[in-house]
């Protein structure tokens, strides 16, 4: 299946390479992700997991190869259209990437404002999402005043609030205690149960064991399918 007509697939990578100078971060990656899959990309630090995620949302361009996301060919997307691609994703960054000078509410609301939603709707929706992730009481707090677990939950809230097609999560439980990690995992599972596609990059074997799902193994830029 390399023609991109497969209706059940949402992400396709064809012979993708990524180089940083002479450093090969990703080598000849060909990959198909179906709708409503829950995928783990595992591998040691430096294997290329974060790089792979960045290529999907055009955080950086590929060096070689082609990527299709939900019918969009990434090599044909101009800078002015890139937000249409980004709106397909909810991204949970390893370093959260919350705006430190804006409240939790404003951080989460940003996604909906950017897609032109009405003020009233935004107000209601953001509140309900923050309630779901369990930090409603921190709605007016600034991110630097939150604990790591709370920041992570705010980041998850921002990732799901726009009801994206796909969630990308980079080490979502990286620096969290196991209780907080469980909460995050449950939120991702909940998103998946409602029909979303989830891709999690992690070196946390414990998390993978608890969650189940398809596992892809990256090692020094090469993709290994287990089995």
């Amino acid at each position, binding site marked *: 299946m390399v023609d991109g007509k497969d209706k059940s697939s949402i992400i396709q990578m064809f012979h993708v390479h990524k180089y940083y100078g002479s450093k090969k971060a990703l080598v000849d990656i060909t990959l198909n992700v179906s709708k409503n899959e829950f995928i783990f990309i595992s591998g040691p630090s430096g294997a290329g997991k974060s790089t792979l995620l960045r290529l999907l949302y055009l955080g950086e361009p590929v060096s070689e190869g082609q990527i299709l996301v939900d019918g969009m060919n990434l090599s044909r997307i101009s800078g002015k259209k890139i*937000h249409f691609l980004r709106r397909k994703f909810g991204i949970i960054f390893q370093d959260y990437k919350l705006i430190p000078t804006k409240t939790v509410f404003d951080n989460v609301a940003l*996604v909906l*404002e950017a897609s032109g939603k009405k003020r009233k709707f935004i107000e209601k929706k953001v509140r309900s999402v923050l309630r779901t992730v369990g930090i409603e009481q921190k709605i007016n707090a600034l991110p630097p005043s939150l604990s790591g677990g709370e920041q992570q939950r705010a980041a998850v809230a921002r990732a799901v609030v*726009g009801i994206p097609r796909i969630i990308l999560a980079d080490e979502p439980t990286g620096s969290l205690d196991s209780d907080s990690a469980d909460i995050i995992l449950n939120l991702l599972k909940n998103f998946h149960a409602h029909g979303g596609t989830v891709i999690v990059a992690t070196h946390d074997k414990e998390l993978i064991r608890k969650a189940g799902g398809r596992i892809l193994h990256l090692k020094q830029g090469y993709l290994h399918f287990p089995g």
Partner: protein
Amino acid sequence: MSTYYHRAVQDIRDNGFLSSVTIITIALSILIVSAFALFFTNANNVMNYWEKGVKIMAYLKPGTSQKNLHDIKRNIQEIYGVQDVNFISKEEAFKKLKKQMKRQSSILMNLNENPLPDAFEIRMTTSSQRSEKVEEIATKIESMPLIEDIEYGQKWLEQFTNIFDLFRLAGYTIGGIFFIATVFIMANTIRLAIYMRREEIEIMRLVGASEKFIKGPFYIESIIQGTLGGMGGIVALFITFKLISSTVENSFKYELLDIKFLSPEFYCGIILCSIFVGWLGCYISLKQFLKT
């Protein structure tokens, strides 16, 4: 649009210090440019007033008869370039003098006799208000019988016009320089604002904000700053003007000078210019900095 405005106002509030510095900078530039404009429009008015006032006074020998007066008036009127001729009797001239000298009029009261002569006040057509022309006409009038003396003051006026033109040119140049300087200051301020918020902008992009969504508030912010700065500059100028003009009017009792503030069209134009400067500064720095 309303959410852009909302965000712009919030950004101005969040970056209070930088915003105030920007607004004050614009206000000062506008103050300087409009102060020049104010000076030149007033100087221009005075010049026009004087030019309109180019006239020749022809003083008559004492005891000139009514009939002779009529003849002389007709003769003067027939000279090419003369617009109109006004007879000013010595009584009239005396009354005017007394009025002009209000407090010191007691000096005049003590005079037994009116020392002033009868006179004709001669105005030239516009095309003849040039020094050679005026001189030519004056010579003709002076050679007439019964004219004792003539008076006109075109020569120094002409020189003054040349100097004034030079000043005006300098004024335009300085105004232009300040305009450009303000655009650059504006561009730099926005650039600083973008630089300080580069992380925020990057995050906005990552969560799917369009370029329009990111840039919109910067434009609105700059336009608000341009408007406030422009109005601030004009208000500052107006206050300065009021303070100065009241002192000037106090020392010039006889209303020799009639200084006016800029016309509403003019200062609205300056404020529009200031808004444009804000927009342009924003445009330049966004063009440079927010490349994708």
